[in-house]
Structure formats: C-alpha cells, structure tokens
C-alpha cells in the first residue's frame, strides 16, 4: 500500500526538525532517505512510526488518512521500524525478545505454543538460536533479530534507521541483500542513511533532506554522486581537510606495549602499537570489539592488568601508575556528554578540568570564567556562556567545547575515539582540522573511527581491532575496504 506524508512539520524547542516535508513511498519500493546528521530524517520517520506527534501535516495510507498516535498504532497498520539504538533487550533471550514484541503472544509460554514467533528467524537471522541471550550475539546478529521482530508484525513498510553505521563491510553487503529481498516480496523499505554506497546498493529512489527540508527526490539508478553530496551538504564551500604529511622519523613517540585490561563485558589482550611523532594511526573495527576500552587504556582511565604506555621512552601509564590528567595527553572520548564533561557543572569548570589540581585552595572563579570565555570564543562554542551547565550544549557545540579543552594547548599524545559521531559535515571538518593541526606540530594521534572512508583518506596507518586484539596494521598504501573489511570480520588477513 502506498504511504504518503503531506506537509509534516515538527519542532523541538528552537529547532525545526521537519519543515513541511511531503514524501511518498510506493509499494515494493526501497526509498533511501539521505542526509547528513541533524537533517531530520530520523525525526520524520519517527513521526510516521508514531514515536513523535507531528505539529502539523497528514499521513495517508493507501489514500486514507490515518492518525498514528503511538508505535502501537503504527505496528497495527503494518509499519515497523528498526532503530539505531536497538530495542532488543540484551539480558533476555532471542525468543523472549520476539515474544515481547509479538501482539498475539500466548499468555502462557509452554513448549509448543511459542513456535509461531520463530518462523522467520531461520530465514532472516541464520545461525541465531532462540535460547541464546541477546547479549551474546554480535552487533550484526542483534540487528537481524531486531528485523525479525519487525517482520513478525506483518510489517508492510519497514524503516531502517542508519543500519549500516555499526556493521563491517561484509555484514553491510548482507544487509543490502536482505533489503532487496524484502522489496522483492512486495514490502516497502525506507533506508535512512548518510552514506552514498547504501543508496547505490539497494535503493530504487532517493530523497535528500537538509536542515529539516526535503530538497530533492530522484531515481536512485541514474543519480550523480557529486550532485547528491551538494544537495546533502548545501553550498560546496567545504575546503578539503589538509592531509598531513607522513611522519618524518620512525622513532615512536608513543608505545603501547603488551596492554591487557578488562571490564565486566570486554577485554583487551596483547595490544602492541607504536605511533611516531606526527603520525595519525587510525583504528578500525566493528563496534563492540573493544574500541572504547582501548581508548581508555591508552589514556590511563582504566586499570591495566599488564603492559604499559610509554611517552618518548618514559612510562606514562602502567599497572601501578595511571595519570589520566597528565598535561601532555589529550583525550576526546566517545559519548562526550557522558564521558568528557560533568553535565551539571558549568562550562568554565569543565574547561578548567585538566588544571583543577593546580588551582589554589580557594580559586578565583572570575579568572576561570574569563579564561573560559576566551576559549569558547576561539572555538566558536555557542551559546557563549561560561556559567551555563555543559549538559545544555548541543552535540556539535559540546564536542567543540571538549576540543577547546583538549586541543587548545599543544599535546604530545592525543586519543580521539569516534570524535565525529553524530556531527554534521562542518563540525566534522572542524574536528579533523584541529586534530591534524596537532599532528603537524608533532603529536602522536590514536584515532578510532567508524568511518572507513575517512580513515582511508586521512590516516597514515590503520590498525584493525577484533575481539580485543589487533588483527592487523595496514599502511595507507596497502589499505582498502576489502582488506580492512576482512580483518574486521575475520580477525585475520584474507
């Protein structure tokens, strides 16, 4: 059945997330909803799914107007959504997760009557046993279970919200195949993405959104990649990021030697990496293979069970001493709101964090505020209020604040973990500019990223993390998507 969205508008406070968007989705069609982070694609689909209520506009199903007030309504109408943050519950089994989402689930879970929920499991999630806990599954498998959950509801329209951002290249291909299969069976698919390869691989049509508006629609097959990028990003006044020269000396500035550490759910083993001054060492890997733990271990934020981190030959962090506040080190962690700032505390305090212990017993807060104001001006953090709680800043501005703190002084060792996640292209560029400026001045950079294209473009060498170990390190010349992809999914060279 055809789905029509007519003049949908949705505002969140000062932000107009959707601005009179009209869109049509045909039966058996794969529509790629393209746009960069913050364009409003997710919001639009969440309105269709009933997760949000539109401020104005209508939704028509098969020509009839419908009122979708909640996800329940959407599901009843045959609309399903697979979210970026999966809603499968790790502590429960696959079977339990499927039963939970099944509207006609039996009240009593006996041995016989739970079979109907598992019908599509074998087809769309091969190799996933019903009794396994979801926490034991890989990210790709969790996504498959999520999809089966949606299909169990006889969904005729399936919305996929940025499904490929967490997958390895092989799994991405598998997903594209599944999407094409779904369309072949007469279902419609809306594929939200900011990657062109997704459009190329399985979309029939592409709709481009930018800052809340629908700016273009086109047939996916005849499209011009460069034109699409321009439509996504707006004016093409994006200077390319200056590529840094490869490091002059081979003597390592930073050495991670035989690192071993673990948390409740992850562990790293035998990490050996050397980074020369001025070198950008990228780290690729399917999400969940230990990336954030590696970043934490390299910066002294977690206990090391074995091994150490050397800076210019002397021990920076080891099992016995950890110095996360060392002034020679800069750290841009994943999820800045949770990991890089104290959200309730004011900007000036968060900016002065690294120097906190060097302040006098009764600090002059006015002086700290002035310093903060200057930094926020330099790095264009808005709103420019040093007394504002940092948690009130938007994603892009928050990351700028973190960068203002970490990269405004020359550092000798910088770890950046997914520093551009969720940022639009301009903000992403700003981050890279700062990072590579430090590299040019001689800093050793450990850069963990989910974006293989960026890694291939800017890193001097790329290491691949697999199940907590380094599966391989490729130089810029050797690395390509196929070789990296194989390392990411198999843990060894092809």
């Amino acid at each position, binding site marked *: 059945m055809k789905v029509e969205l007519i003049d949908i508008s949705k505002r969140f406070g000062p932000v107009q997330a959707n601005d009179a968007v009209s869109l049509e989705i045909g039966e058996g069609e794969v529509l790629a909803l393209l746009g960069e982070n913050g364009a409003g694609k997710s919001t639009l689909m969440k309105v269709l799914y009933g997760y949000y209520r539109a401020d104005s506009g209508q939704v028509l199903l098969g020509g009839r107007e419908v009122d979708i007030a909640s996800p329940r309504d959407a599901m009843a109408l045959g609309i399903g959504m697979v979210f970026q943050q999966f809603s499968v519950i790790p502590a429960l089994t696959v079977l339990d997760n499927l039963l939970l989402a099944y509207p006609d689930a039996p009240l009593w879970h006996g041995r016989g009557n739970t079979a109907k929920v598992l019908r599509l499991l074998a087809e769309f999630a091969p190799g996933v046993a019903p009794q396994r806990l979801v926490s034991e599954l890989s990210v790709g498998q969790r996504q498959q279970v999520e999809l089966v959950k949606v299909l169990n509801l006889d969904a005729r329209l399936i919305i996929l919200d940025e499904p490929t951002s967490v997958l390895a290249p092989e799994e991405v291909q598998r997903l594209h195949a599944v999407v094409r299969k779904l369309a072949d069976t007469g279902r419609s698919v809306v594929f939200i993405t900011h990657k062109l390869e997704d459009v190329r691989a399985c979309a029939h049509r592409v709709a481009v959104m930018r800052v809340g508006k629908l700016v273009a629609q086109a047939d996916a097959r005849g499209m011009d990649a460069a034109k699409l990028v321009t439509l996504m990003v707006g004016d093409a006044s994006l200077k390319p990021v200056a590529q840094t020269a490869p490091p002059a000396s081979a003597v390592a500035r930073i050495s991670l030697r035989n690192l071993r550490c673990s948390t409740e759910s992850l562990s790293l083993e035998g990490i050996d990496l050397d980074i020369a001054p001025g070198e950008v060492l990228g780290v690729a890997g399917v999400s969940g293979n230990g990336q954030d733990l590696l970043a934490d271990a390299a910066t002294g*934020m977690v206990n090391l069970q074995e091994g150490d981190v050397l800076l210019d030959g002397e021990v920076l962090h080891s099992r016995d001493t950890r110095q996360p506040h060392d002034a020679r080190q800069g750290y841009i962690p994943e999820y800045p709101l949770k990991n890089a700032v104290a*959200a309730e505390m004011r900007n000036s305090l968060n900016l002065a964090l690294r120097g906190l212990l060097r302040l006098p017993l009764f600090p002059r807060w006015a002086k700290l505020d002035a310093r903060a104001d200057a930094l926020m001006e330099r790095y264009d953090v808005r709103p420019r209020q040093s007394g504002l709680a940092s948690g009130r800043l938007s994603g892009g501005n928050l990351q700028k604040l973190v960068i203002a703190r970490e990269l405004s002084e020359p550092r000798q060792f910088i770890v950046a973990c997914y520093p551009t996640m969720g940022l639009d292209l301009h903000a992403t560029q700003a981050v890279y500019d700062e990072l590579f400026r430090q590299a040019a001045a001689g800093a050793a950079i450990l850069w963990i990223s989910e974006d293989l294209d960026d890694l291939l473009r800017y890193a001097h060498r790329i290491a691949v993390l697999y199940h907590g170990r380094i599966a391989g390190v490729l130089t810029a010349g050797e690395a390509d998507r196929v070789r990296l992809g194989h390392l990411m999914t198999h843990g060894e060279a092809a």
Partner: protein
Amino acid sequence: MKSFLALPWVDRAFVPVAGTLVFLLLAAVFFQLNGYAPLQIFSQMVQGAFGNAFSTNTTLSKTIPILFCAMATALPARMGLVSVGAEGQLYFGALTGTAVVLAITAAPFWELFPAALLLALLGGALWGAIPGVLRAALGVNETIVTILMNYIAIKIVEYAVYGPWKDAANLGWPATIAFPDAAKFPSLHLGALSSNWALVLAVLLAIVLHVLVEKSRWGTGLSLLRSNPRVARMAGLSYTRHAIAVMALAGSLAGLAGWVQAANVQTHLQPDISSGYGYIGFLVAWLAGQNFLRIIPLALIMGGLLSSGDALQLFAQLPFSNTLVMQALLFISVLGVGAWRAKHRSVA
C-alpha cells in the same frame, strides 16, 4: 504568576515555604483524624520547644547530636553518597570513647577528655570508613550497608553494657559506671540558658564546612565526583580516596555526637544514648538541601520538635511516636514539593 515565581527570592523560598505549608496541612489532618485539635497541638508544640528556659535547654540539648549527625549526612551527600549511618557511627564513637574512660577513669580533664574525644572521633571515623571502602572498592550501595551497620553497632554497644562493661553496682540496669566530670564537654551558661561547648563546636564546624564545600577547590572536587566520577578522574581526582576520606570525616562527626550523648547527656554508656538522632540528622540534611548553613536553624527546629514531643506526651497524652510521624510527613512534604517544583521549572 509564573513571573512571580521566577523572582529569585521567591524561587529560593518556594520549596521551604510551600513544603512547610503542605506539612502543616498533613500534620493537621493527622491530628484531626486522631481526635486532637490541630491548632492547640501546634501551639503546645511551640510552647514545649521554646516556651521557657527548661524547654529551651532541652531543645538545645537535642539540637547538638542532630546538628552533628546532619553534618555527617550532608558531607557524603555532597559527593553523591547517600549515607544513613550516622546512628551507628554515633553509637560506635560512644563505644570507643567509653573504652578510654574505663581505662583511665581517674585521669585529670586535660588528659581524659581529649583522649576520650579523640577515640570517639576515631571510632566514628572507622564505622564510617567501612561503608566508604566497600562503596569505592566493590561498588556496594552505601545506603544499605550503613543502615545494616547501624543495627550492628547498637548490638555491640548492648553487648558491652549488658556484659563486660556493666557496672556491677547497677542491679541489672544495663549501663557502665557514671562518667567522671573530666570526661565531659565543659558546660556553657548564658543567662537562664545552659548547654555545653559541643554546641559551639558544632556550629563552628558547620560554618567551616560550609565555606570549604561551597568555595574551595576541594568542595568543587566533591561536586565533580558526584556529577561524574569518570570525568573527575580526568581531572586527577580519585573517587576511592575521596569516598573513604569523606565517609571517615562524616563518621567522626557522628562519633562526636555519640560522645556528647554518652558523656554529657546520659553520663553513662547505655543502650538508649540516641533517640534516633542519626535518622533525624539525615532528615535535617535533606531538608537543608545538604547546605551546612541551613542545617543550623533546621537542627534547632528539629530539636524543638523532639523537646515538645516530651511535653505533649505529658500534657496532651499524645504518644511520643507522633514525632516520628511528624518527621516523616515533613520529609515527604518537602521531597514532594521540591520534586514538583523541579519538574515544572525545567518545563518552563
């Protein structure tokens, strides 16, 4: 209306004033339902708290342990630790202090008092440090541990006063020998009012802690640790070290209260040296928003409430347990109003 509420002085006064009004309403309903005239009871409460020199002195006497125990709650709270262990720390401090008295009973004041006081501080500090260590090292929730340790501390004191420390001349009454004057806080007189120097000490400590917590780098560190322990690590602050230090310091404050109760008020170590002051202190700290200056008047009001409870039992035949109900209703009122206000402020 909204702009009136946005005025800074109104904003700050809203929760205490509205909370108190809600409390008075609930209290009035409670009294009415039980056959007591609310207004009469309220006026008798004020009489019983501050009506004459005797009641005022009783109030001051009860204010001292409440003030210490409130500080013992507020300090960990600044770091995000919810400690309800002041009661047990009070008992344990009294216990260790008593050990000194029993060891050097005949010593002069300048030997006995400082030694006993020091041991009381250390005992309270130990009883507070244990949950701190458990929280820092194992992540065990300190609220549960501190409350359980309260029961254990009381049992240990009972063991001591029913057993090895019982004064044989007591004929079955569980208590130690009477404490010599050299073990007590020196008394303090102001006209008809009489108290002791522990009151002055408590007020001074509250002021000092207030300044440190609000204005110093250490206090900011505590707020940072409460807000985000991980990020605090990036600033070089150790959660473990601060948690243990703060809990030990807090415990020593409650231990001090224990010494006042055992030495000055009861003059013996016995099972009922505290009328739940640990829990009342917890309440006062919450009502004060964990602010050390506000704790001072609030502790006084609570002391008055308890003092009037004695009077009401005598004159109005109102069981003393009504003070427990009053405390709970006050807590609920202020919590409720505070949360309601916070919810509506962020929406506006």
